[in-house]
């Protein structure tokens, strides 16, 4: 084996080693980034679960509120506690009729 061929073999081996090293470093880097991404994703999932839990709690509150302010319940409460009943037509008044039903009182004359 000549000195030249031995030199070429050595250079080739070095290149392969360097390429291998670069590949390994890149792979390790990618693994690191990917691991970080998965950690972030897991945190996002955890946050998402918290949001879901909060939304579920809000839904429960909304359902309770809807139950509490049901017209039938409010009607029953206002009738039993306050003696209210449904409004009748004769109890209503349009804006244009206010003046005729409740005329303005005469202004008292100013003292001389």
């Amino acid at each position, binding site marked *: 084996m000549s000195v030249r061929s031995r030199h070429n073999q050595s250079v080739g081996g070095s290149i392969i080693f360097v390429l291998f090293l670069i590949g390994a470093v890149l*792979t390790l880097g990618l693994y690191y980034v990917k691991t970080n991404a998965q950690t972030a994703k897991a945190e996002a999932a955890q946050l998402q679960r918290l949001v879901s839990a909060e939304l579920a709690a809000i839904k429960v509150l909304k359902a309770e509120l*809807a139950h509490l302010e049901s017209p039938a319940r409010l009607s029953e409460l206002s009738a039993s506690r306050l003696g209210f009943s449904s409004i009748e*037509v004769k109890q*209503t008044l349009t804006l244009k009729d206010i003046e005729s039903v409740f005329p303005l009182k005469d202004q008292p004359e100013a003292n001389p």
Partner: protein
Amino acid sequence: MSIDPEFSGPARRQVHVADTEYRAVAEGRIRIRIGAAIFAFALMVAVIRLAEVSLLSSGKNTNNYSQSAKLERADIVDRNGELLATTLTTYTLYARSEYVWNAAETARALHELFPDMEAQDFQRRLTRPGDQLLIRRGLTPKEKQNVFLLGQPGLMFEAEPQRVYPRGHLASHIVGFTDVDLKGLAGSERAFDTALSEPNAPSLALSVDLRVQNAAAEELQKSLEHFKADTGAAIVMDMNNGEILAMASLPNYDPNHPNTTSPQNLYNHASMSTYELGSVFKPITMAMALEYGVTDLVETFPVQKPLKVRDKYIRDDHPSQHPIAMPTILADSSNRGTAMIAQRVGGDRQQMFLKELGLMDRVPIELTESAAPQVQREWQDITTVTVSYGHGISVTPLALTTAIATLLNGGEYVAPTLRKRDTVHTAQKRRVITAETSQKLRDLMRYVATDGTGKKADVDGYAIMGKTGTADKPSINGYDERRLVSSFIAAFPYQDPQYVVFVTFDEPKAVEGTHGYATAGWNAAPTAGKIIERIAPILGVERDTGPVLESPFSETPAVR
């Protein structure tokens, strides 16, 4: 070291030198190379695995949120966003018998939390063989916490979605219910099942106004009890776009507990029950006669004379002693007069007109609970006569409401809907009668409310139009005069009709104050009036405090 004996030099000897160090170094190199190769191979395997994990890993099992999202179902709200149905997470309580220390003690503790279930029942469930014993379903978060605080071992929870209807009985037939797998079984839950089940679907806005629904249901309930009727139904519809604002059917049910409800209560009488509705059909006969031009508003008909069709005498409840014209025929609800007008129209044109109004087919509403009409197979001359005043044809209250809305909204048919109209879900209109005929129908029905059988429905300041209908129920031997279906169709306000209201009672009874009558003028008409009195302000219909708006046919203007 050895010397080669064939050495040709001065000494000419050859000496063989055994280089033991060289051999040792050579062996060492071989070992190093093998070790390096193994190391390189191992490193390569590690790198390839790293590359595989880094590049090909799909990141599964990092987020199981989507699994719970599959169990979602969109909310149902009314037209103003009021919640009607929602999905909540509830908990199912299980037990693992091998971990339960003391079944009797656990059962007692559970009984204290859930008194509706006996301690023996709990104990029996806790001691059954099996890994996962179902103890109780549908626990609220608070109940779950209370069970947790018992500190009893062997009790487990599993989250599951449950459909909840916070309004209870109100609008139960409209909203419907689902099964435990959240599949729609009735009402809107079934009608809009696909839209509600889609992932991340928005809330479904119905056309219903909860306030209007409550007012209609309350007044219907009061009247149903007062007149001791078997069942009742009420509908409020926007006549210009077909939106159902209220649809009440009694008896009703709590959709939170559909399994404990009688099947009769699940029946939506507004859209499923077909009735021979009687005289509320008469405006339809008048409309077809005016549209086909076979008569006008002033021609009189000899209703004082007996009318016989195929051996059947047509009789009037309030017989007139002299000929009367169309307005009085309608206001006095004359069967004879209506029959004479229908005979002029003829059976073929009558069928065609009824089909145009959608009365010969199932109402094309989203609900699956919508019944087809019952129509006679052979349309004889007697059929033309009886159908003209609402006998011999059975339709649902919803079908008649839609038909009358067509007559009064300017003459265009609009299919009813339970979905709130928007830019996507617009009303498709189809002209049936002219606007001129529609105006005449408004005048005629206003006349019924001011001077005819519908006086008890009129509400001061809202100028309603209407028509009563009282029909004998069919029995084995013809019709049973003691069993009635009473109805009232109303619309308001007269000057600019917007809403149509229909009320019907199945077998109402005569009560104190009705002078022995159980007819529509005494029960359905005042009920419709009370409903209008309550819903008109809600719907923003301005009360008219001026002189009473009269129909052109009124002889003497009423004085407020």
